[in-house]
């Protein structure tokens, strides 16, 4: 007899009891792990297939169809949109986009690494500093871009102050220049660079630096030979996280660059609004997508093979 002093539970564990349908469904699913997984995956997967994959496919289809008279497409097949893209005008846009994205990435890396390094070594200030870095990350991109306009336009704050203080007579044209777009992109994406580098530095074992010091390495050497290589995964991830959105950037160049600094994103949007060339817009969009995916693949190759879940 048990010391729990009660008669054994009637019925015991539920076997014959329990809701019929539920029990039968669970019993059917139990030996079928694949079915279990796919039951859960089905709704979301269907949605993503229908509203992500299928649209891309339709877009590709549109890119190889002749242009319709009032926008849209006509039935048929033609590679006209893609050959059109080979025109120097459009290739320039592609080049400009690429150069801008690279410049943004480089500047972000140059600014972001020291910031990440400082935060990683900042002791009790760490959470505050992190919060300060993360906050812009969450703030509306549109608002932040407008803030740049507010600062940089001819009647904007910087110019007003320059003129009012007598340093200049005429406003400096900052808006609608490549500089403005670059500044806007770096401003927008810097947090994306800082956070991965910080994460990487956080994981660095201080004992390694101590060991290097004991072996005679001076601060600069310790940085170059221990810190930098070990934080490389974070740096590479950060570059990817800045490069990719910069390539596909639309809003920044639209608001800060104007008509002179068209990037691919703007080109695409244009084709669906004023230019009404849907096949061409689809083609340009598809090309953009391919370039982005290619960049991701390059990253996956470049990534040090040993990195675990971190980056």
């Amino acid at each position: 007899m048990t010391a729990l002093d009660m008669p054994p539970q009637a019925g015991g564990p539920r076997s014959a009891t329990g809701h019929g349908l539920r029990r039968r469904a669970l019993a059917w699913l139990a030996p079928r792990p694949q079915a279990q997984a796919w039951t859960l995956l089905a709704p979301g997967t269907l949605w993503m297939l229908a509203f992500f994959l299928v649209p891309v496919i339709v877009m590709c289809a549109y890119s190889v169809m002749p242009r319709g008279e009032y926008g849209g497409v006509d039935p048929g097949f033609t590679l006209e949109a893609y050959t059109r893209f080979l025109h120097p005008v459009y290739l320039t846009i592609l080049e400009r986009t690429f150069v801008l994205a690279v410049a943004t990435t480089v500047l972000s890396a140059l600014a972001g690494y020291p910031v990440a390094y400082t935060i990683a070594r900042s002791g009790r200030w760490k959470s505050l500093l992190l919060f300060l870095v993360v906050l812009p990350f969450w703030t509306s991109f549109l608002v932040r871009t407008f803030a740049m306009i507010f600062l940089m336009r001819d009647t904007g704050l910087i110019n007003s102050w320059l003129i009012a203080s007598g340093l200049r007579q005429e406003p400096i044209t900052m808006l609608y220049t490549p500089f403005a777009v670059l500044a806007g992109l770096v401003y927008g994406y810097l947090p994306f660079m800082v956070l991965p580098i910080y994460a990487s530095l956080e994981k660095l074992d201080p004992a390694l630096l101590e060991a290097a010091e004991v072996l005679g390495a001076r601060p600069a050497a310790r940085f170059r030979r221990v810190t930098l290589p070990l934080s490389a995964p974070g740096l590479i991830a950060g570059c990817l996280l800045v490069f990719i959105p910069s390539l596909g950037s639309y809003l920044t160049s639209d608001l800060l660059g104007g008509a002179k600094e068209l990037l691919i994103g703007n080109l695409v949007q244009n084709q669906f609004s004023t230019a009404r060339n849907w096949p061409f817009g689809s083609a340009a969009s598809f090309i953009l997508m391919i370039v982005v995916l290619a960049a991701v693949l390059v990253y996956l190759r470049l990534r040090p093979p040993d990195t675990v879940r971190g980056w």
Partner: protein
Amino acid sequence: MTHTDRPAPAVEFRHVSKSFGTTKAVDSISFTIERGEFFSILGPSGCGKTTTLRLLAGFETPDPDGGEVRILGEVVNDKRPYERQIAMVFQNYALFPHLSVERNIAFGLEQRRTPRSEIAGRVARALDLVRLAPQTFARRSPAQLSGGQRQRVALARALVLDPAILLLDEPLGAIDLQLRKEMQLELKALNKQLGTTFLYVTHDQEEALTMSDRIAVMSHARIAQLGTPAEIYENPRTAFVAKFIGESNFLDGRIADRTDAWWEVEGRGGIRFRIPVLNGLASGQDVRIAVRPEWLDVFHPDAVPAGENAILGTVRDVVYLGETMHVVVSAPSTPDITVALRNEGQLINPLPWRRGDPATVAWRPEDCQILEDE
């Protein structure tokens, strides 16, 4: 309906196999656990003990042709964990962090639709059983408990359901030594007091020896040996068991000739020793024996007792272990032999052995454990 002479055992595994991909985690193992028994599965990590436990719990199912798992006589291969009459205690306690201690314990009762009025009483009694005062602990959350207290709550949560079998998956691993020893004795007492069958999985051989009625030693997905603690310790059947449990000295040799009740074995380097006669042994056969350090003694080369196996060598080291002294003797052509002697106080009655002394290691022939091939 067939009428059996005795009630079905608590657990039966009949040629149970479980594979993950191409590797067999459990390879056609069979064993029985009697009702009320404290049964341990002992082995190093990767041997299959945890998989065996999970097969009994119902988290894994045997391979399609992989045998039967029976609980109280009934085949449960297709039954989900919540359909089996088991309860389980996990290594990291697995207490529900968002529920208080009493809600944790009541959880299983609620699943069985136990009336509210009964639940409070049973929870209190379960807490008493694991020696936690209900008034103090019932309302606390798991985060407010120490490791030992959490483990007791986990126990209470399982035992309150009065399961046919209690499964314990290395439950004392994260607890410190002193408390661990206490809890080992408590678990054993609970097993006897409640009459609940316990299946205990561990890699700690001392733990298994202390608490179990019987032990199954597992290695590489198979059961290497099954028996009482005394059988496992004193009559290890394979080199693995002899090495894994306690310490052993190993000697290899070939059977030469027979004198009376003994075989004469020739080892390397001219060593000769005697082993008991057993079925299945024949002249010319290679044999391996194990001798535990505590069955050996060290003598001056001239003072060896008659009738004992003896190996002449040199003292290589004397190790102070507190309760025992280990004298390590090296002899040509054999690995070092370790002898365990009781420490009668090195300050008042020190051992006469020093490094470099000639010494003979001796033991009785009947203490040779003849090992099987693995």
